[in-house]
């Protein structure tokens, strides 16, 4: 079992004819993902890796019954691509693009409140249900099928933690990178709620980082609503205030909100053990299972 994606998911890749889109569409197909179409304005009628390309998402849905999109579109055009997928009433849109202006995302966020489509990202590695489907850029080979759910704001940190889990034989139900931007579609709570409802997820890893208050809110949610055990990790303990640590969202405010300590404290209060190292996170998960 899994959350959000599985081998029935029918994927349209927005931006499939670009360098990144083409490469990762190929990787997704190789992983076994059901990539049914690409969508690139002006490229309708072409094929990429045997996948038909349409000019619009609308046509991809009409012709190929796509129900999810993955967006590899440069930042200047990415918000438009997200609007296109939201307005086409897909079940899921996964925006990989890094560097979308925050004010564009505020508009997208408003639109999200009006639609049933789930957005994951942007500025995220995507989502994978090992052995079934991969939507995004995660390296499929490090994942293995199992019962640990993983949700993270960071890409490579996710790989690190997954690697530690997989090495110990702790496979994953689904792993989601929710993205490192200040405004994102799917929050920790959204993912945790879905994992809690998934009968085949028996433990969850939540990798947070500095900036914002999502982790604190997630901690409260875990304390109040979750039976599935959660292990935590928070990156950015050594980050100085006022500096953007790579991710647009990874910034401790001048007044000291959004610190790693505040998030660690909140998680501990909710009974969530927080590892000092990725290895320790894997230790905690091992104890749960």
């Amino acid at each position: 079992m899994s959350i959000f994606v599985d081998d029935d998911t029918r994927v349209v890749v927005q931006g499939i004819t670009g360098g990144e889109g083409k490469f990762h569409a190929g990787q997704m197909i190789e992983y076994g993902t059901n990539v049914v179409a690409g969508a690139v304005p002006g490229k309708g009628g072409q094929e990429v890796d045997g996948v038909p390309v349409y000019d619009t998402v609308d046509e991809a849905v009409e012709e190929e019954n796509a129900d999810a999109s993955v967006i590899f579109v440069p930042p200047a055009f990415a918000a438009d691509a997200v609007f296109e997928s939201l307005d086409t009433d897909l079940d899921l849109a996964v925006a990989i693009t890094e560097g979308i202006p925050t004010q564009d995302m505020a508009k997208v966020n408003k639109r999200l409140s009006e639609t049933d489509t789930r957005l994951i990202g942007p500025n995220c590695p995507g989502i994978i249900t090992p052995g079934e489907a991969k939507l995004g850029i995660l390296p499929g080979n490090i994942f293995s099928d199992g019962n640990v759910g993983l949700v993270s704001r960071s890409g490579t940190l996710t790989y690190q933690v997954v690697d530690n889990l997989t090495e110990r034989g702790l496979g994953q139900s689904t792993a989601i990178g929710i993205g490192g931007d200040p405004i994102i579609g799917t929050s920790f709570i959204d993912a945790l709620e879905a994992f809690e409802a998934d009968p085949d997820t028996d433990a969850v890893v939540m990798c947070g980082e500095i900036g914002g208050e999502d982790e604190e809110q997630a901690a409260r949610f875990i304390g109040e609503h979750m039976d599935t055990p959660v292990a935590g990790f928070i990156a950015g303990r050594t980050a100085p205030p006022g500096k953007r640590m790579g991710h647009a969202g990874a910034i401790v405010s001048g007044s000291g909100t959004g610190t790693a300590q505040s998030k660690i404290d909140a998680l501990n209060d909710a009974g969530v053990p927080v590892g000092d190292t990725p290895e320790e996170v894997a230790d905690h998960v091992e104890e749960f299972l």
Partner: protein
Amino acid sequence: MKLHEHQAKTIFADAGIPVPDSRLATTVDEALDAVDEIGYPAAIKAQVHVGGRGKAGGIKIATDREEAEQYAEEILGMDLKGYTVDSVLVEAGVDFVDELYVGVTMDRGEGKPVLMVSTEGGVDIEEVAEENPDAIAREHVDPAFGLHPYQARKVVYEAGVDADVALDVASILSTLYDLYEDSDASEIEVNPVMITGDRDVIAADAVMNIDEDALFRQPDLADLAEESYEDDLERKAGEYGFDYVRLSGNVGIIGNGAGLVMTTLDLVDYYGGAPANFLDIGGGAKAERVTQALDMVFSDENVDAVVFNIFGGITRGDEVAKGINEALEQFDEIPKKVVVRLAGTNAEEGMEILNTDLVEVEKTLEDAVQRAVKNAEEVTQ
């Protein structure tokens, strides 16, 4: 990307917001020419991106020419929390009877811009927010509609701004919101807005933070950003296009992906070391990027040892290894010890390629960090 006060004030003035008369000066003579034109009292204000400039001695009020000269001499060239002051803004002193705070920022929890107004201006607003949150009135803006003019008025009245200046303050706030939208700001703040005895309303300070991700469509602001670097390493990182943050420790850190690099910093600290920087080479880096990253870290004289931590997704271990070899082979002697850890895509190929005469290799993140910390300790001992 934070603009300098004088840059932001020029933008404010162009938008019609009243600001005090001012001149930028880079020498004491220029500063004196400026006060001669502007008159007394005049504020001499260090143009550096440092919070609490005033408390740190970076802002002084001169009441005559002698004081002006003295303060300009003191401030120009001074070290303010690690930054050298290259220029001062010489500004007409405002005879105020009241100070307000007004600002526009993104409330990331709500995903909406928020207007903020407080009658407790002139002090650290973040302290006000913590100690007396009710002293700040807030109004969220629906980003699809943009600001409705009534909202600026509403938040100003709610904050308890005096009735006789309320509409003027609301008008400034509306303009600030327009600037916020038009310039893709992440934050605009005026603290304080000064109310004079004649009930004029003047923006006495100006903070503008621009969303770096939007600079592609803000060419004018991108130019200002160029002028705004205050550190050679930051400038270099900007030119290379790296996400880079300078810290005060001595272990240089290079990695891929913000979360993993932060984690590497945290582990350096956890194992008793002190990180010198955050440097993310991003996804899919080729050999050239790797060379540039090492150049960055080697250029930092505070760095005593380096840890290079890659978990390959898009980034390929063999490309990284090639870059490391190329970068290091040009040295007769490697300037600082480099510990490399490669995992993920093509990690094994990379490990084979790596010239182990030039670098030390570790298999796990934890081991690599511990070794780098030890290397740094050896240098400082």
